[in-house]
């Protein structure tokens, strides 16, 4: 339908309706953003500003939250601090103004690295397995196809705590407790169901004629899959990968129950960041900000495919 | 054991006309929903006690019924 046509259509809302709808949606969007903006603001506050009443919107920015996130500090007497040399770096400077010295790096970076390794590892595996299976389900006659697809989907719907009990026992027996490999395998199994369903939707949309033409040209089925289907499915594979990445990045239940140190990811770590006398909110906010930024970027990249992703590829718009 | 929609199956008779997939699926769905409601309702401990059996029965029925041909 052309633009000129829609402008005169009887079903088009009037300019006033549009304006009203627009302002209501903008109002909702602004309200819904407040908690997120508050996270970012808090991360740049000093501890005193963060817990002031009334809550401060205007404040002097401080990097203390980020410093406290990345370092551990120990309290010292002013006399001892005076005997030390000049402060090493900004964080040491801030710490000394509070009668503390930087004792070493905190655990946040290793936890963040764990999150990265586990998220990327499980995504690569899930997308690789998912692409193969999706192609299989899309192109071949598989006996009990619908049952297998339902079985695959139902594994994703299982309550995580119910799955965690036997996984905990199994991993303890075979020595995968608190290892990155164990978490990668677990997240892969959860993500592969989404990957199969999503990618099946994307591959179903690629006309079979392309492969069949290639096979007439002498390609085997496998060559046709690699050289014709995969390039066509790049967008779908990328979108699926981002979905898997976000799931593995966000996951908390398995991580908190099955990891304790070595393989712990950021989500179970962030809530236990504490300072002297309770939670160090600027540090928690700083950790949260750093943790959320990649997801915000990916969400914006993914916005056209979000609907597919949350309906397992069923609704395509 | 694959039930392919294209292979003709002998012996379609009276039972086939009554036991159609649509209504049977609706019955199974209702039983599952009833089981879930029984599990979470605040009124009767007896209903709660029987909720799991109901949901399980509904789920098994649904799985069997989904094999019946349309």
């Amino acid at each position, binding site marked *: 339908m052309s633009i000129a046509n829609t402008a005169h*259509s*009887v*079903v088009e*809302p009037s300019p006033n309706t549009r304006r009203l709808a627009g302002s209501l949606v903008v109002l*909702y*969007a602004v309200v819904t*953003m407040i*908690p*997120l903006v508050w996270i970012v603001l808090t991360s740049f506050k000093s501890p005193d500003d*963060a817990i002031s009443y*009334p809550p401060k919107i205007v404040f002097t920015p401080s990097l203390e939250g980020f410093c406290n996130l990345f370092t551990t500090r120990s309290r010292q007497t002013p006399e001892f601090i005076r005997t030390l040399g000049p402060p090493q770096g900004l964080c040491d400077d801030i710490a000394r103004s509070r009668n503390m010295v930087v004792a070493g790096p905190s655990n946040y970076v290793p936890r963040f690295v764990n999150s990265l390794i586990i998220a990327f590892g499980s995504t690569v595996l899930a997308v690789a*397995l998912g692409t193969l299976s999706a*192609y299989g389900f899309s192109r*071949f006659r*598989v006996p009990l196809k619908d049952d*297998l697809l*339902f079985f695959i989907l139902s*594994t994703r*719907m*299982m*309550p995580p*705590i*119910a*799955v965690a*009990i*036997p*996984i*905990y*026992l199994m991993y303890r027996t075979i020595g995968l407790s608190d290892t990155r490999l164990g978490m990668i395998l677990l997240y892969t*199994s959860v993500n592969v169901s989404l990957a199969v369903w999503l990618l099946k939707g994307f591959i179903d949309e690629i006309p*079979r*004629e392309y492969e069949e033409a290639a096979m*007439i040209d002498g390609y085997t*089925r496998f060559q046709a899959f690699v050289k014709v289907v995969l390039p066509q499915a790049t967008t779908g594979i990328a979108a699926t990968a981002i979905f898997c990445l976000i799931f593995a990045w966000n996951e*908390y*239940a398995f991580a908190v129950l099955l990891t304790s140190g070595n393989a712990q990811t950021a989500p179970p770590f962030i*809530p236990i960041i504490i300072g002297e006398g309770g*939670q160090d909110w600027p540090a928690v*906010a700083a950790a*949260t900000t750093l*943790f959320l930024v990649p997801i*915000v970027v990916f*969400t*914006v990249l993914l916005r056209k495919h979000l*609907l597919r992703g*949350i*309906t397992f590829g*069923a609704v395509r718009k | 054991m694959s039930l392919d929609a294209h292979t003709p199956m002998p012996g379609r008779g009276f039972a086939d006309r009554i036991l159609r997939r649509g209504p049977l699926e609706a019955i199974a*769905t209702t039983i*599952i*929903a009833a*089981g879930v409601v029984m*599990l*979470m309702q605040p009124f009767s*401990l007896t209903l709660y006690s029987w*909720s*799991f059996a109901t949901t*399980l029965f509904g*789920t098994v029925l649904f799985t069997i019924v*989904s094999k019946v041909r349309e």
Partner: protein
Amino acid sequence: MNDLSAPSRITYGAVLVRPAVVRRIRGLSDKALAWLFITPTMVLLLAINIFPLIWTIYLSFTNYRANRPNAPVKWLGIDWYQTILTDPDIWAAMQVTAHFVFWTVVIETVLGFGLAFLIDKKFRGHGVWTTIILLPMMLSPAVVGNFWTFLYQPQIGLFNYVVAFLTGHPASSFQMLGDVTLSPWAIVIVDAWMWTPYVMLICLAGLRSIPDYIYEAAEVDRASKWRQFWSITLPMALPFIMLAVLFRGIENFKMFDMVNLLTGGGPGSTTEVASITLKRAAFESWRTGYSSAFAIILFVTVFGLANIYVKALNRVKSR
């Protein structure tokens, strides 16, 4: 749909390269390839999902305790199931879950559908605002839920400040997370904040799937906007709304991470949803057999609902 159906392919192939022979020499048959492609996924799911599930079923009939792996294991039959299904405390936890599921689904559906209805008016810049609205649902429920405990602080929290500002109650006069009547609503608010966009997005797809000509016909018939909404918009978007409702229902029935971080089930057990009860039994009291039985009960419920969900999914797909 498919121009090169099977017979014509063979004709082409026979003329050119005799496919059966070539395929045998050059590669695998389609059937072998299909299994080769599907098997790895199945093996992984069998190892990480199905085998543990069967193990859980076995454990649910025993008195096994994970913190005493060497103690003799006794077969108990369905004792645990009877215990759980007659236990008023577990029943209470199910009602806490019901409160959470019911109110989140109602609020998210009303708000989500309303938003979708407004966005469907295609005002200027609706794309950008839609993306902004969608952000919360992509974020980690655990990490963001944890930050909400800060917003809910009675003295210093932004939420209490805003409520105090709007209603006049002093900000320190109520504790969202510490109060027996307020805490069940505190978790509902955070969940609604996170997941309203989810319902909105699916409803929007539903609204956009309604073809314009139906409304045009209604206009010709002089049906009022109000009537059009009730007899066209709502019924035609209903399968999509059902899809969203079912999925949110399932997800919130097994909700763990957000509630665990916001309240941990407290105060007392006022926000102890089923997953929290299960976690306490399994990973704090280490009653593995008992918690396995409870896990199976929750699992069967979710599995039953998943059947209905896939049915709803297929109905939407055919649109």
